[in-house]
């Protein structure tokens, strides 16, 4: 039956590179989880540069009161696209990409459960993102903020076609994410190596696994909301138009019922990375494996019962607010336990500060701050004071940047040797780390203060009130430091890809399965594997080998 089988140039022996025989065709037709993982990372980097450029423009505009570098309309498009890009096209694809690459390796599988679905997920993500960004060329980008509150996002108030691109683009990437989520769950459930019981998987795998359920449950809600928004805009229905019988609050409910789990979708895999990096560089076991795994489930369940804490000022009434405040504060408990467990993992270890570990430690500190400011906005009367001011801007950046992005950097410095076979340059890495840490805290710590000084978020300018100018200027200078740090990081990647020190199979002497194979792994990850008996299979096997020899 030749009719239904297509000959695709799939890799046969070695991992292909762009220089290989099939070249780029092989990359775009690949279903190999490693290649797709790498593509995910490149896609994220591409969008990261776009989103970062938008952020820099915004900080430039806000550097001093009364500047007119971009027009108000452009500014609104910039922050909308910055938020949307960073959440949907940078953080999510990076985390999904790392999981696509390492989840099968860590459970001793050679492939994901559905390799073609895996490829589809990647391309959906990419094309959804391109569609979203195409809006810049098609008359105007979305301009109603990344959560697009109706009715501002309706045709009557947002005239360009930007929000149509927003709806369609996010639906497309959302379908891609659902595909990835399905794949992760099923791969974890069905393809683990012999002996690796579900309660013995590495924590990164566990957290991606739990996270995938969040994706599966949250994205349909977003898609439903987006579909209604799109029908409102294109076919003239009335879902979110209050003056013709619709409801503005309904959109907020749909969006945040998705949006809050989304925050944990961005956080949990990061927690997983930290739970791999910290033990390896502390030369210790992960402290409280079971607790870390259990608290993840707890967080995932709670995350669906907290969405209305984004709507404390919407006037929902005290009883509803009480319920959601309780849920939101409760999340602080498992998260706090996690933080203590990570620190306890380092306790009495031999901590080696590679760049990866530095990012992990900085993550603990910054994420604690982000968590505490998160509790502040969970306390309803304080939310009535600070929400929608720069305090919230500071909070989300402490969670997404100081939290998730730091874990991503930690993960990339940790796993780059496995992906490329070469080490990232540690000296450049440290420059990257310190500049980024300094720039990040400079930019965003002061924004807490700006929030206390009543500066609303999403303003393209501000009155020249005392200290507004200077705080914003320092904040913008911090952004420049981050820019330099990112340039160093990218330079480091390209330099190390060419001439980095060769890594060997297991440069960190780590113990999860991905370090048992070659760097980079061959097309077939593993030929044969011994049985897994503990959380530290690679160390066990080395010991067995030594014992057999003597």
């Amino acid at each position, binding site marked *: 039956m030749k009719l239904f089988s297509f000959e695709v140039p799939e890799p046969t022996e070695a991992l292909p590179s762009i220089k290989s025989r099939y070249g780029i065709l092989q990359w775009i037709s690949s279903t190999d989880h490693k290649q797709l993982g790498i593509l995910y990372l490149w896609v994220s980097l591409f969008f990261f540069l776009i989103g970062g450029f938008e952020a820099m423009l915004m900080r430039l505009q806000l550097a001093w009161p009364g500047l007119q570098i971009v027009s*108000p*309309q452009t500014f609104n498009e910039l922050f909308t696209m910055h938020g949307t890009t960073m959440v949907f096209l940078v953080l999510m694809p990076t985390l999904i990409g790392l999981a696509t690459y390492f989840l099968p390796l860590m459970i001793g599988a050679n492939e994901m459960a559905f390799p073609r679905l895996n490829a589809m997920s990647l391309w959906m993500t990419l094309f959804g993102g391109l569609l979203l960004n195409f809006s810049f060329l098609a008359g105007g980008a979305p*301009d*109603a*903020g990344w959560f697009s*509150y109706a009715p*501002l996002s309706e045709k*009557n*108030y947002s005239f360009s076609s930007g929000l149509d691109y927003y709806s369609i683009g996010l639906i497309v990437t959302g379908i891609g994410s659902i595909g990835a989520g399905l794949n992760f769950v099923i791969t974890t459930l069905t393809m683990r190596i012999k002996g690796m019981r579900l309660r013995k998987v590495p924590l990164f795998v566990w957290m991606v696994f739990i996270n995938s359920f969040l994706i599966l449950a949250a994205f349909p809600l977003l898609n439903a909301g987006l579909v209604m928004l799109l029908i409102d805009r294109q076919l003239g229905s009335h879902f979110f138009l*209050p003056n013709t019988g*619709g409801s*503005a*609050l309904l959109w907020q409910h749909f969006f945040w019922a998705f949006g809050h789990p989304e925050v944990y979708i961005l956080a949990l895999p990061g927690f997983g990375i930290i739970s791999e990096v910290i033990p390896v560089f502390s*030369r*210790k*076991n992960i*402290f*409280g494996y079971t*607790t870390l795994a259990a608290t993840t489930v707890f967080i995932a369940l709670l995350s669906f019962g907290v969405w209305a804490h984004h*709507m404390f*000022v*919407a*006037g929902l009434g*005290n009883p509803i607010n*009480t319920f959601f*405040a309780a849920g939101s*504060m409760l999340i*602080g*408990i498992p998260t706090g*336990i996690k933080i203590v467990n990570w*620190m*306890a993992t*380092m306790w*009495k270890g*031999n*901590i*080696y500060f590679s760049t990866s570990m530095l990012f992990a*430690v900085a993550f603990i*500190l910054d994420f*604690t*701050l982000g968590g505490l400011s998160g*509790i502040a906005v969970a*306390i*309803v*009367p*304080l939310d*009535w*004071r*600070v*929400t*929608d*001011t720069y305090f919230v801007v500071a909070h989300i950046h402490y969670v997404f940047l100081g939290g998730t992005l730091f874990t991503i950097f930690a993960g990339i410095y940790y796993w780059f040797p496995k992906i490329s076979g070469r080490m990232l340059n540690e000296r450049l890495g440290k420059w990257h780390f310190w500049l980024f840490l300094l720039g990040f805290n400079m930019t965003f710590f002061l924004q807490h203060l700006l*929030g*206390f000084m*009543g500066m*609303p978020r999403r*303003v*393209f300018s501000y009155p020249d009130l*005392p*200290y507004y100018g200077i705080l914003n200027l320092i904040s913008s200078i911090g952004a420049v430091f981050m820019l330099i740090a990112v340039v160093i990081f990218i330079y480091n990647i390209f330099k190390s890809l060419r001439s980095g020190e060769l890594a060997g199979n297991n440069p960190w002497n780590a113990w999860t399965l991905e370090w048992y194979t070659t760097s980079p792994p061959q097309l077939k990850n593993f030929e044969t594997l011994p049985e897994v008996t503990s959380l530290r299979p690679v160390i066990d096997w080395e010991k067995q080998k030594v014992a057999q020899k003597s």
Partner: protein
Amino acid sequence: MNESIYHIFRSSSEDTDIMNELFFHFFIAALVVFILVAGFLIFIVRKYKSKKLEKDKYTVLENRSTERITLFIASVLVIVFLFLTVKVMFRIQQTPSEEQKPFVKITGHQWWWEIEYLGDTLFTANELHIPTGDKFVALMESADVVHDWYVPALGRKIDMVPGVTNFVWMQAREPGVYEGMCNEFCGAQHTWMRVEVFAHEPEEFEKWFQEQKQKAVEKPDTLFQKGKQLFQDKVCANCHTIRGTSAKAKVGPDLTHFASRNKMLGGKAEVNFQNIKDWIEDPQKMKHGAYMPNFLMTEEEINALAHYLHNLK
């Protein structure tokens, strides 16, 4: 903090007092937690730092008691702050009783505030004048998109959601000017949707209120009359109200006592002759995205109209 710094902890009402108190308690708790985490982390990092990756070392350590202690401390903190949250929340956002009639209704528009004094129907715009003293209820509505009323010193912030009537308690103990702003992103000129609240002693307020209830002033000079005529001819009256004239539309702000206000365009500019002229000449130049059209008037007409508006004290 220095009084000249604008900040959200300036308090002129009971509500803001107790919110500030709650904030202070939380701030102390959060600071302690953060110092504990940071201190512990720094201690570990200094003590167990190693110059190189000790490839052969591997230690195992498990101890359930730290988890229990964390669980205990975190739970206590959550319970305490949940209790405080509920207590403060129910105290601030009390449903008004029958006697507690709402005093004003504030409606958010893109990008100005419509203010209606209930009971004794009076419409003004963009500046809220209130008497000092007891707290009162204000109703919050929106004419188009979601806005958010926030004057930090007087009370909590509250969204203005189209199709929904929210209420909020406000109070000003001392007379003075209180600045506030729209806090929910509401479109192109969200930035310039600020508001000033003027709190007067009750007698002062009564005086102001009676003044505002007057119809618009009449002046005999020709420029004024010409401006008044232009206001009708150039369809300004299709959107604005000036009581005492035939202008009765309510799309844009009420202009009856326009020149008595301090600022115009949502706090973007002061009310003076030059600004009014600039605004009429090219609204988009002054406030990009604003809904007022450019009527392409001659210099002479602009002068007359600005003169007229500038005299509506």
